[in-house]
């Protein structure tokens, strides 16, 4: 008996939706990353990108534990001397509520050639509206 190998032709990228309101950022990102990477499917094959699309709504209402809105820092560097920029989670969320979730999910996906493609299947919206009604997204499976 040979172990089953999925081929790219057999992949099916389904659609999921999740409401971020009141959800802890990390716990939510784990669930999203699992769906994007396709590791929730019994046919999962490491080198085949069989991830699903995930729509996240109410990204602005996501929750962080403790004092993390003030204490969690995001670092960027412009590559010029002294070019380190630091933002707190609060500042980032006020400007771009979507990016808090996008960054968290990105960090949870393995660094490989499929990561960019998988991230393109993630759509995060600050409010409750989303333009993917036609895809009829199913509720995202729980962290269990």
């Amino acid at each position, binding site marked *: *008996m040979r*172990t*089953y190998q999925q081929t790219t032709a057999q992949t099916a990228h389904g659609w999921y939706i999740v409401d971020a309101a009141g959800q802890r950022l990390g716990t939510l990102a784990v669930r999203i990353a699992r769906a994007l990477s396709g*590791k*929730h*499917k*019994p*046919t*999962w*094959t*490491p080198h085949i990108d069989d991830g699903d699309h995930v729509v996240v709504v109410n990204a602005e209402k996501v929750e962080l534990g403790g004092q993390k809105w003030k204490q969690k820092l995001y670092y960027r560097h412009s590559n010029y001397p002294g070019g380190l920029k630091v933002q707190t989670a609060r500042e980032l969320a006020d400007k771009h509520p979507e990016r808090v979730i996008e960054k968290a999910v990105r960090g949870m996906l393995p660094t490989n050639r499929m990561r960019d493609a998988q991230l393109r299947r993630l759509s995060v919206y600050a409010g409750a509206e989303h333009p993917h009604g036609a895809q009829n997204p199913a509720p995202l*499976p729980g962290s*269990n």
Partner: protein
Amino acid sequence: MARIKRGVHGLKHRRKVMKLVKGFRASRRRNYRVANEALLKSLAYAFRDRRARKRDFRSLWISRINAAVRREGISYSVFMHGLKKSGVSLNRKALADLAISDEKAFGMLLNLARQAAQK
């Protein structure tokens, strides 16, 4: 005793190496000095990875079993514990295959594991 130099055997050895590196890229295929080192490495990796393959596949089966049981609300460890308790001795390769090819049989195993785990 007659003195023996490397002419014939040296050439034979180099030809053997060049034959074995067919399919390598660029100078690793064409240039003996580079090819020889590439061949040593390749044989060493092949030896190591024949052993690593067994671990790689076991971890793949575990990932797949985990994916299949989590959608039914239990985790891999609970599932395997339940199977062991109820005396099912299928290996992970067979379980991963059943999860894909025979959902009915896998569903029955799930029930068994659930019942055994609850006790």
